[in-house]
């Protein structure tokens, strides 16, 4: 998840100007590393495209699909985005790793990370890694 220092999430569809991706080889390498073994990348755009919207039934159906996907053999699944569907997965304990990319900007407004997560959750820090461009990766697992 791409976030600002004050906890706002970058949503898919239009790269916001505060994201610090471009040209940082270390960061690009890291992202390639975590996406190398991935079969599925699901964003909030996919979620909307499926017409499930942000309804309880939509979320429940999504959780069920992810649960099925997890049981299959194969690569990892990445979920990214902010409109609340990630919260359903966290609630069900379906997330195994959290990678937060903290961008060096405070926005004051936007889509709050808390809104997409929606509940109190203790995590366990695995590693923290600063990159040249000023982004800090915070890698957590569920406690």
């Amino acid at each position, binding site marked *: 998840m791409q976030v*600002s220092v004050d906890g706002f999430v970058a949503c898919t569809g239009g790269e916001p100007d505060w994201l610090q991706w471009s040209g940082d080889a270390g960061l690009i390498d890291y992202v390639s590393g975590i996406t190398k073994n991935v079969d599925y990348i699901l964003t909030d755009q996919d979620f909307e495209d499926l017409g499930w919207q942000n309804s309880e039934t939509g979320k429940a159906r999504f959780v069920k699909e992810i649960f099925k996907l997890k049981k299959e053999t194969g690569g990892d699944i990445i979920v990214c985005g902010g409109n609340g569907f990630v919260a359903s997965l966290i609630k069900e304990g379906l997330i195994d790793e959290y990678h937060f990319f903290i961008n*060096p900007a405070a926005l004051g407004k936007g889509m709050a990370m*808390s809104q997409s997560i929606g509940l109190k959750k203790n*995590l*366990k820090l695995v590693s923290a890694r600063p990159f040249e461009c000023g982004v800090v990766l915070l890698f957590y697992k569920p406690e």
Partner: protein
Amino acid sequence: MRKVIASINVSLDSFMSGPNCELDWHFERWGPDLAQSFCEQLSHADTILLGRVTYCAMAQYWPQKAQDLSFPREDIAFADMMNNHTKVVFSGTLTRPVWTNSKLVNGNLETEILNLKQQPGKDIIIYGSGKLITSLVELGGLIDEFVLWVHPVILGKGKPLFKHLPNSLCLKLVKTDTFRSGVVMLDYKPVTNSEN
């Protein structure tokens, strides 16, 4: 000129406290290495700037901690500095600050801060004080460093850092540090227009 440093504990989703000012999640992750880092930062300062809410909470907590024999030894040094440093509290409603070495200020914020910065002395630290920090960011250029202590917890709701910031603030990462309990320190400087 003296530096003004905002030193703020935040949850991973950038809340400074729970909705009713709950700070239990701070205490759960406090430990000797974190205490040492806080002590070092505070030892480079001689003045603490606070808004009314944070001031009142701290004024109730720290004076008795210096006398508490069950308090861990490494924390006593911190408690002593909290009690002995000059506290400058910005409030239009507080009438009588009771904590030792406190000074009440209710004039023009910008003038007061510039005045403080120009006086000789060590760094000036701001703890918590969300409203005060947002006002200083809005006035522009008054905070020289933002040190965020990011705790490994998502709170879901609470008092946000930089509430109602009218313009976004670009920062430059200076350094990071990691603590045993999973707290990560992120040290930033604001990017001035000439650097853009």
